C-alpha cells in the first residue's frame, strides 16, 4: 500500500520542451489558461568586463534551467488546510484531490498554494488540479507527464523509495522553501541550480498562450 505518492524531477536532464505540459493538457482536456503541470525557466548571472580589455564583456556565471512542476501532493498541504468547504482532501495514498461538486470557487487555495497547483476554471466556476492520473494508476499505468517526458526527467512512486533512490532535495529555485508545505517531490538539481531562498536569478519563462 502506498503511503505517499510523489513525483521525481531531474533538473539536470530536463531540456524545457514542455511535452509533459502538453501530455497533461491533452489527457485532461484542459482549457487555455489552465495547466496542471507547468515548466518554469529560471536563470541569472551577468557579464563582466574583460580584465585585459575593459571595453569587451565576457559572460560570467550565466545560467538557465527549467523546472517542471505539477501538484506536489504535499505532506503538509496548505490547500486542504485553508479550503473552507473541505472540497480539497488528501487521500490515504497521499494524493491531494479536489471534489469539484463541493467547491465554491473562492480561489483561496490559489492564494495559498506556492506552487500554483490549484487553478480556476472560469467556465465551470470551480478550482481544478492534478489528480496524479489516478485513473491511469488504478489500471497499472503511469501519469501522462511521466510517460511523455522525452528526456526521462520525470518519475513517480512512493516518496520514501524516491528519496532513497534520488536523494532528498525538494527545493531549488524558483520553488519555495520545502518547510512551508513539505512537498512530496524529489529533485535532482541542475548543475547550476540554486537552492530555494539563496537564488540570485529570476524567472525567465517567456509569456505564451496555452
Amino acid at each position, binding site marked *: 500500500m502506498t503511503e505517499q505518492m510523489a513525483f521525481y524531477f531531474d533538473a539536470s536532464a530536463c531540456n524545457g520542451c514542455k511535452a509533459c505540459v502538453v501530455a497533461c493538457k491533452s489527457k485532461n482536456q484542459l482549457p487555455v489558461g489552465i495547466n496542471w503541470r507547468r515548466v518554469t525557466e529560471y536563470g541569472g548571472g551577468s557579464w563582466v568586463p574583460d580584465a585585459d580589455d575593459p571595453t569587451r564583456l565576457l559572460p560570467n556565471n550565466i545560467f538557465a534551467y527549467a523546472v517542471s512542476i505539477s501538484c506536489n501532493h504535499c505532506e503538509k498541504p496548505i490547500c486542504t488546510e485553508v479550503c473552507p468547504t473541505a472540497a480539497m482532501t488528501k487521500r490515504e495514498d497521499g494524493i491531494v484531490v479536489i471534489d469539484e461538486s463541493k467547491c465554491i470557487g*473562492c480561489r483561496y487555495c490559489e492564494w495559498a498554494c506556492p506552487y500554483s497547483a490549484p487553478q480556476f476554471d472560469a467556465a465551470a466556476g470551480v478550482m481544478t488540479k492534478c489528480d496524479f492520473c489516478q485513473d491511469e494508476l488504478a489500471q497499472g499505468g503511469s501519469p501522462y507527464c511521466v510517460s511523455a517526458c522525452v528526456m526521462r526527467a520525470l518519475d513517480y512512486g512512493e516518496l520514501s523509495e524516491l528519496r532513497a533512490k534520488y536523494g532528498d532535495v525538494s527545493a531549488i529555485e*524558483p520553488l519555495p522553501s520545502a518547510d512551508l508545505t513539505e512537498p512530496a517531490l524529489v529533485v535532482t538539481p541542475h548543475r547550476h541550480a540554486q537552492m530555494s531562498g539563496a537564488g540570485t536569478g529570476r524567472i525567465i519563462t517567456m509569456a505564451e498562450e496555452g
Partner: protein
Amino acid sequence: MNTHDWSLVLFTILAQMSVGSFVVLGIVHFLVARKHGAEEADRMSDRALLAIGPVLVLGLIASLFHLGNPLNAYNAIGNLGSSWLSREIFSGVAFAVVGGVFAFMQWRKLGSASQRNLLALLAALIGLVLVYSMSNVYLLRTVAVWDSVLTPVSFFTTTFLLGALATGAAFVANYAYLQRKNPGCADAQCVLLRKTLSWIGISSIVLLGVEFVVLPLYLVYLSSASSAGNLIAGSYSTVLVVRLVLAFLGAGLFGAMVYRNAVSVGREKAAGNWAYAAFALVLISEILGRFLFYASHTGFSL
C-alpha cells in the same frame, strides 16, 4: 489584482465598519444610559443601530460575487476545524443573526433592558471574533506579504476608525432628524451630540496615529518580504499617496475640526458637517488601502 477582488474589498471594509459601528455605538449607549438614562440613550442611538444591518448585509452580498460557484455557498462553513475562511463566514453570519435579533428587540423594545444588553454584548463579541477570523484568513505561511502581525493590527484599526466615524455621521443625521421636530439646542440630545462628537474627533486622531505607525512598518516589511514592495512603491504609489493624504485629512485634520466645533456651544451644525466629511474621506482612504492590501499579493509565478 483581479476584478473579483473588488468584492472582497467591499466585503471586508463593510463588515469591519459594521462591527466597529456596533461596538462604538454600544459603548456610547452604555455611557449615555448610565449618566442620562436609557430613554435619552435610545433616542440617540436606535436609528443608528438600524442602519448597521443593511451595511453588513450589503457586505455579505458583495462577498458572494467573489465566488465562482455561488450556488455552493452553503458549503463555505464545511471546514470550521481548520479553515479560517470557514470561521470568518460562520462568525459573519452569526454576527448578522445575533445583531439582527438584538436590533429588532431594541427597536420594538422587546424583552427587558438587561436581556437586550446581554444580547448586544454577545453580538459585539461575535463581531470582534469576526474581525479576528477575517485577519487570520490572510495569515498564510506561504504568503509573506500578508503573514505578519500588521495584518490584524490594521484590520482592527480600520474597524474602530470607520466604526467611530460612521457612528459619528449617524449621530449627526439622527440629530438633524430630531431637530426638524424640535429645533434649537435646548435639549439633552444637543449636549450629548456635542460631547460624543468631541470624543469621536479625538478617537479618530488617535487611530490615525496608529495607522501612521503601522504603515511605514508595513512598507518596510513588504520590501523585505517580496517584490510586492516594489510594486506598491512603483505602479501603485499614487494610490498609496492618495490613501495617506485622505486618511490624514479625514481622520486627522477633519477629526480636529470636529472636536473644535463640538466643544463650543452653537456650532453643532459645523461639527456635524466636518463629521460627515471626515467619514467620507476616511471611507475612501480605507477602501484604497484595502485595494493595495490585495494588490500586494502578486500571485505565484510557477
